[in-house]
């Protein structure tokens, strides 16, 4: 099948492309990108006035399957992804069973084969049952197809064990993703410790619980000559520590999530449980530091940390609510609204954070539009506005921090491996 996208602004940082071009897709791959490609027997999409970018690679997604299909499934999660222009997701390991052995990976691979609507990469656990006691067999999991390792949801507390994991991961050529949190410091907290937690009478999570662990993980990675990726950076000190480490040549990369560059702890006022996440929303100064970190390149990637939870788990007392917000459907629009529109990032820089950098970090062959690459593409109307409406969300769970918020940028088409899998409002 041939598909010709005409006359769109093609943004592909990998090839330093940013101009009005046509894109020809042939048999699931990009065949040609140039001006005025002649119309053969192909289907045509007129992309005049629209932006053509590589499909987004969201490297932090909780698809919840197997185990918590009431929150999300591979099917509903990947459908939500397509609506947000996301064509590749990294599925986190905190499923039930956890992704800690080849047999569990096989279960997930079967589900993906049967029901995934976009590319799903698997992040395996670092320790068995994510309990921080015994390492998984890293080499075997890599062989089974895992592209990264993380106990996300918790950090590996044991220094020696974590160092060993970094070493083995290096030998196997697989990435370690760190959920940086010292539970001894944050245990029992439900929001950022500070003025708002004090006013609301909620137990606070001190920022030390994050940045001290960022510091430790980077030091241990350096000692073992390995590399680490820091997930969901939320506070200023973490940005500073990563910046210093990078300056000294440490092999560290980092991601943040849209809620950390958009919202602050003030959003928790009113005890809105959709604003409860881990790490928690921080202060305006932290938000500013995250924005600066994105601008300077200290923070390499934007990932949603899509964390679906049922109504029963969110519509409760703030103390008892689960941590997390969904994000697949709003991520790109928040990037456009908060970063591009406010002149913090240029479009090519935004595309780097969403597409190219995550692909590089995960060492997967995605995130680019060069000829020969997989035809994973999002076509975006950057100026169209929409309001996040609970009823219109595709995700099985509706716990979005952005309900009712007006955002800029809608995805007109999502193309995955050469096929139009989503056309504004309609999944195919």
């Amino acid at each position, binding site marked *: 099948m041939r598909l010709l996208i005409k006359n769109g602004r093609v943004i592909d940082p990998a090839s330093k492309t940013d101009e009005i071009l046509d894109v020809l897709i042939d048999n699931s791959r990009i065949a040609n990108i140039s001006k005025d490609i002649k119309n053969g027997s192909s289907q045509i999409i007129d992309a005049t006035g629209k932006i053509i970018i590589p499909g987004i690679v969201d490297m932090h997604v909780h698809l919840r399957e197997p185990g918590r299909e009431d929150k999300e499934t591979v099917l509903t999660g990947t459908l939500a992804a397509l609506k947000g222009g996301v064509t590749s997701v990294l599925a986190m390991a905190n499923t039930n069973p956890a992704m800690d052995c080849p047999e569990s990976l096989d279960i997930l691979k079967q589900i993906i084969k049967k029901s995934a609507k976009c590319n799903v990469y698997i992040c395996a656990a670092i320790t068995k049952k994510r309990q921080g006691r015994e390492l998984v067999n890293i080499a075997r999991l890599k062989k089974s197809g895992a592209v990264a390792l993380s106990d996300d949801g918790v950090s590996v507390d044991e220094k020696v064990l974590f160092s060993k994991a970094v070493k083995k991961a290096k030998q196997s050529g697989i990435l370690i993703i760190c959920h940086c949190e010292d539970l001894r410091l944050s245990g029992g907290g439900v929001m950022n410790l500070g003025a708002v937690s004090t006013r609301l009478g909620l137990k606070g999570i*001190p920022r030390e619980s994050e940045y001290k662990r960022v510091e430790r993980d980077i030091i241990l990675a350096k000692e073992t000559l390995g590399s680490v990726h820091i997930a969901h950076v939320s506070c200023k000190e973490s940005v500073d520590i990563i910046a210093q480490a990078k300056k000294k040549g440490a092999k560290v990369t980092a991601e943040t999530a849209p809620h950390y560059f958009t919202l602050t702890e003030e959003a928790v006022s009113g005890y809105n449980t959709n604003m409860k996440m881990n790490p928690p929303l921080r202060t305006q100064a932290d938000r500013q530091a995250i924005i600066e970190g994105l601008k300077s390149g200290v923070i390499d990637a934007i990932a949603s940390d899509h964390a679906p939870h049922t109504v029963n788990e969110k519509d409760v007392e703030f*103390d008892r609510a689960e941590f997390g917000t969904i994000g697949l459907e709003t991520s790109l629009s928040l990037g456009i609204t908060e970063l591009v529109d406010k002149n913090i990032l240029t479009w090519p820089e935004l595309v780097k954070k969403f597409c190219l950098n995550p692909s590089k970090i995960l060492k997967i062959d995605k995130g680019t539009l060069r000829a020969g690459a997989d035809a994973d593409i999002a076509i975006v109307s950057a100026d169209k506005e929409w309001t996040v409406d609970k009823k219109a969300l595709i995700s099985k769970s509706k716990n979005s921090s952005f309900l009712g918020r007006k955002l800029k940028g809608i995805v007109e088409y999502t193309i995955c491996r050469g096929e139009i899998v989503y056309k504004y409002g309609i999944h195919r």
Partner: protein
Amino acid sequence: MTNTAWTRKDLLGLEDLSREEIELILATAETFKEVSTREIKKVPALRGKTVVNLFFEPSTRTRVSFEVAAKRLSADVINIAVETSSVKKGETLIDTGTNIQALKADIIVMRHNCSGAAQVFAQHVDLSVVNAGDGWHEHPTQALLDIFTLKEKLGKIEGLNVTIVGDIAHSRVARSNIWGLSKLGAKVTVCAPKMLIPAGFEVFPAQVTHNLDEALAKADAVNVLRMQFERDGQTAFPEQMEYFRNFGITEERIAKAKKNILVMHPGPLNRGIEISSEVADGQNSVILEQVTNGIAVRMAVLFLVAQARDRKNAIANKKRPRN
């Protein structure tokens, strides 16, 4: 008696109230206080209405005070004590609320150990919700009765120096008092060991000191909070004796303070821990008057929220097409 100035169907905290609203509650309480001195201590203001005391955390004092207040207004009262453990097992807070709503109750008086619980609850039910204490957040009727007592004894609130001593970090009584007093023009000082003043405390309109003598020097009144030493296993907690030595309200300390300083305590007392028996039972103490005033203040609150809800419902019914 109608008060069109009061439009809230719920009382969730004092942070959101205006000075005028607080003054209106105090004035209403004053008229209700007289009822408790009559031979027949009853007015028909809430006749036919049902008040549910929904307590997720045991508190005999507050519950009884609300019960007496509701009965003196001729309301029917139902007491529900919910075991927090059974809540964890199944029925959610919202389920509990909608069930009580289905019983056609009018007012829920709610005590809960989670901050914000009353607010979440009020969003899901259309009956009136009165917060009788939520976690560390607010306990508005306690602060109102404290303020009412102060005003009754000293004639005004504006310009008073009020000191609050004790576990500020975990105290809903302190938070509500700070909001209420500062809105009425009092100067509030809080006094506690460093570790009991929470991070970001600057958001509150209050001075902080760790020296009790300094805190008492200018005070027209001191509100002594109940100390709980067993709270969530915190380490490095000051020992009880050391606490009493540094922060206990004793006769010697009161002797050095202003002559007519008022001593208040929300109860129940820990004699010999935060306050000595001599002070608790002494001339400066208004602790029992606080209990009496609690009934008048709670009558006022129940009355005002019920009236506001009735008015809202009447307007909603009028707007509804009649065919």
